[in-house]
């Protein structure tokens, strides 16, 4: 087998193994529930032995744990995530569909803006190293990195939605019945909060790798050939500096999927984050399971994609294999 293919297959296998173990953790966590799901659904009615036993049977709780797990995993893989324990006991997939779309739009917008901005900031900081701009960005990044994202969000709300200016809505109660494109003003503050939370990580990584590349021999060679500095930067240095940054970008998009919890909650944005907060508060286990599984799977998959991209585009990994 060609070494490159072997490396890719090993990486893919590890990703799948992690996904499998993640599902075990999510399933096992619910087994720690004092009492069981049947009790949780019936509440006070669980004293009624006949109904309790019937529901246990219906939910498959009378079977051994291993077959419960395989049954659950089989359902999850078929896209059946069970029914919510709260309200009308709607199907979890129906309940979460719109939320997943909303959050997907939110995260995509944040990624779409934050990555190019970070790349420009990182590249300029590297080229004008130790300049006023670089030092200013350093302080800016160090401050932003320190702040919890909901604190960044609150500061933005104070500045642009309430105390200082009243330009933007402070609550992002997106209406799922109307098209999202007409409600873009509701996305501005959450998206900006996420952008500000992501920029420091990506731009710092890009700055470091750009500095390293700019000091390499092939960049010196390009300069000695008499190429314009802008061409050296954009055509020779940056494409290589971005390679080690790909994984940081992937981690950060994955982080966005988890970090949206507090930001969505802050703005009352109807996405998976507020969905998770509500489900946890109501102890709606099927919804919690579905959302935690989704968020963890996004992390594993994005990492997998980043690793595979890195393997494919970095010559050292492609050719250095024996």
């Amino acid at each position, binding site marked *: 087998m060609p070494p490159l293919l072997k490396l890719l297959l090993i990486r893919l296998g*590890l990703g799948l193994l992690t996904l499998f173990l993640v599902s075990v953790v999510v399933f096992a966590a619910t087994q720690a529930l*004092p009492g069981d799901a049947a009790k949780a659904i019936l509440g006070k009615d669980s004293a009624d032995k006949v109904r309790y036993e019937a529901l246990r049977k219906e939910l498959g709780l009378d079977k051994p744990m291993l077959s419960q797990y395989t049954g659950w995993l089989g359902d999850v893989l078929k896209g059946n995530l069970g029914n919510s324990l709260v309200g009308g006991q709607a199907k979890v997939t129906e309940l979460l569909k719109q939320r997943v779309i909303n959050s997907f739009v939110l995260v995509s917008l944040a990624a779409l803006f934050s990555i190019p901005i970070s790349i420009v900031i990182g590249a300029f900081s590297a080229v004008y190293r130790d300049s006023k701009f670089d030092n200013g960005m350093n302080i800016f990044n160090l401050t932003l990195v*320190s702040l919890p994202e909901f604190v960044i969000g*609150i500061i933005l709300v104070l500045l642009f939605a309430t105390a200082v200016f009243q330009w933007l809505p402070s609550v992002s109660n997106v209406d799922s019945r109307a098209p999202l494109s007409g409600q873009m003003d509701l996305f501005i503050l959450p998206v900006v909060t996420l952008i500000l939370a992501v920029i420091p990580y990506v731009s710092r990584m890009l700055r470091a790798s750009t500095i390293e590349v700019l000091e390499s021999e092939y960049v010196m060679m390009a300069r000695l050939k008499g190429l314009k500095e802008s061409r050296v930067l954009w055509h020779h240095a940056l494409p290589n500096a971005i390679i080690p940054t790909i994984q940081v970008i992937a981690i950060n998009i994955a982080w966005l999927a988890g970090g949206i919890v507090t930001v969505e909650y802050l703005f009352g944005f109807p996405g998976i984050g507020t969905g998770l*907060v509500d489900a946890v508060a109501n102890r709606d286990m099927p919804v919690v399971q579905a959302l935690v599984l989704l968020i963890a799977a996004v992390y594993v998959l994005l990492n997998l994609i980043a690793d595979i991209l890195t393997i494919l585009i970095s010559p050292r990994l492609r050719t250095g294999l024996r």
Partner: protein
Amino acid sequence: MSQSSDAGLDPLQPLETLELEPLQTLPIGKQRPEWLQTVLDAWSLRRTKIGLVLFLVLLVVAVFGRFWAPYSPTEFVGPPFSLPTAEYWLGTDFLGRDVYTRVLYGGLSVFVLGIAATVIGMVLGVSLGLISGYARRWVDESIMRMLDVVLAFPSVVLAMLFVSILGPRLWLIVLMVGISHMPRIARVTRAATVDLAQRDFVRAATAVGVPRRRILFREVLPNISSPLLVEFGLRLTYSIIMIAALSFLGFGMQPPSADWGLMINENRIAITVQPWAVISPVILIAALTISTNLMADGLARAMMGIDRTTGTT
């Protein structure tokens, strides 16, 4: 970043610490401990001083502030959401309690829970990292795979998964934040241990039959104290962020406790009417996380020896 690579993969980690250089100090009997040297070097940086002073001021406020608080934190002193007056300097909160008093009371939980979570994460992570880095082979592989799984859950989400089952218990929150630190701390420890295990003095100790536990804790651990100290600083910032976030979501300290994260949540509905009930805890949390991060950054720079020659950052 790669799940299987050993490079630090935490976004909070300054880039300077991503590569652990071979440690140059030899473990000679009475030499100054490595971590102490890092602390002394870090002290020469302005950012460390600013961070430490800010941190100590906030610590004093959080621990002793209650003694100069004008009211009780659960006492109703005026109408809800009153603006600051001479009587209550920062106004009142959503139930008419004094915001200034609650701010003075509300920091202790952030400090205690944040430090406890960091210590738990360090103990678990360092132990696993030492074992993993020294044992190698399948022990190493299985520990690292297990940690990859933990890594797949964002800290807040991991904590929420268990809160949904056991309810918002403080010990649970602290434990979960600690566990979520475990993978990154273990990776840093493992990388340093692998490096050190090849060195002659460790191999000599192995050769003369020193028990494994003694080698790990007496030979290896003292020689990786600097990167671990830096890691502790970074994790502390992160713990405080997580604990504050969980309180803000309503899964940390429960009402009627005074807690900075909880205060933000309780009073944000009237942010237009009485912003001070929100601004005060926001500023304090921000100052605290900035102070710990400045210290961590100073330590990281000192460890890499960037500033020993020039004395600048």
